[in-house]
């Protein structure tokens, strides 16, 4: 990852969503992007040029644009038409972004368009979030990684975030996905946790 004066940045064409520039780099704000927060808190999974990324919940494509600055190819899945309009505009300016308008909960609908991915990044506000991640793990390479941004308040508003995280981790374990690391994204995002996991080896 590129740091300039302790600020996380990415190199690419600016002016995607009004982001600040630092020298010739685009500033990646941890308060806006959960992935940026993950790196500010010492997240060790590095994005590299040779990675194929499956991005679930691409929204307006702000974080997608930064991921695309680092990674090889980004498959960006978004369901709602309004953010999709912005995402398509972002994808037009970055030729390694493939925009897909589809429901991440139904991977079989877009499976023929995808390829095996090195990283699945998920940031969706659904109570079924973990189940959806597990369903999509069919696209993951055996030595690939899955990074789940767990929105504990979307999963259960009433339950303690810590308990929701525990449940989610054991749900992943039942699906033979082993959790490598978990991180709370405080103070950048409240009640959000990052879960780094990988398919368990047989």
């Amino acid at each position, binding site marked *: 990852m590129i740091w300039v004066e302790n600020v996380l940045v990415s190199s690419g064409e600016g002016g995607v969503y009004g982001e600040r520039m630092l020298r010739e780099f685009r500033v990646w704000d941890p308060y806006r992007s959960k992935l940026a927060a993950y790196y500010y808190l010492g997240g060790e999974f590095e994005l590299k040029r040779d990675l194929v990324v499956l991005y679930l919940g691409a929204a307006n494509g702000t974080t997608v644009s930064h991921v695309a600055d680092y990674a090889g190819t980004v498959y960006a899945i978004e369901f709602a038409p309004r953010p999709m309009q912005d995402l398509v505009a972002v994808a037009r300016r970055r030729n390694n972004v493939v925009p897909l308008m589809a429901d991440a909960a139904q991977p079989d609908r877009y499976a023929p368009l*995808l390829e095996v991915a090195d990283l699945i990044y998920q940031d969706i506000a659904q109570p079924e979030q973990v189940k959806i991640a597990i369903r999509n793990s069919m696209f993951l390479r055996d030595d690939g990684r899955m990074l789940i941004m767990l929105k504990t308040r979307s999963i259960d508003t009433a339950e303690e975030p810590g308990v929701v995280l525990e449940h989610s981790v054991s749900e992943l374990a039942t699906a033979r996905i082993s959790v490598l690391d978990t991180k709370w994204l405080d103070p950048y995002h409240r009640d959000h946790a990052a879960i780094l996991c990988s398919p368990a080896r047989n």
Partner: protein
Amino acid sequence: MQSYWFGDVDENGCTPYRGGPEALAKRLETIPSSPDSFTPFDWRNAEKCSFTPDRGEYIRKLRELCFYLSEAGITRQYESRDAELLQMVRTLDQLDEVSNVLTERALEWHRITNPGFSRKYMRLPKQKLLPMMKRGGSPAFRQVINEIENLASVRTALMKEVSRRADEVLPNCSALLGGLVAARLVSQAGSLATLSRLPGSSIQVLGARTALFSHMRGGTPPPKHGIIFQHRRVHNAPKEVRGKVARVLAAKLAIAARLDQYRQELAEEFIETAQAAIDNAGSIT
């Protein structure tokens, strides 16, 4: 054999599909979706495929197809019959807000220029209050009042349009609830498709978010009604049966929403029995 967007791949090699994005999109729909037996395409095994050796070309073609699909998908979503109704009813509710805020401010202004103004004028209906305030104000002030009156007529026109459109798009929900409240219900749910998949119990408390979450977090009693409170049979019902009326109405609305979504026409028989059931719930025995 496995089918992908660019062609079929089996142990003998690859049969690419020909054609532009449109043809590929049509072809894509014919690929059976079976999540259990599907093997995702792996670029590392791509050498079998005569079409794919150049990754740049692969991604370029795929992007072309995906832009086509995305744009078609966005258009399809916006074309759904309820999309415009949703914007109309949200505009209507926002018009109300704006008009109320402006009226409040104008009142404060008026009060300062008229020492004799007192609380009793506040109880006047807007239609009487505004002309009264207009007398004697400065030209700019009168213009503001004119604008508020204008907003009121815009609102009336828009409300008629909302009711008419709701009768068309949501015939069954409108028959039970009235066009305006039915449209608000759809607006709160997000779309008719979403509303039609909600259980009656969710429809009952749609629009009572704060009360519902404070109940779930602990302590407070659960809300009896959300938006459907605006329907006369709910807010006119005696307090002890209001929850019951709301529950029955919501249950019938769940059915009505499904009729609107999938049958798209008025089901008179259903409306009759539903009305009877709701009236029955409201009568105290």
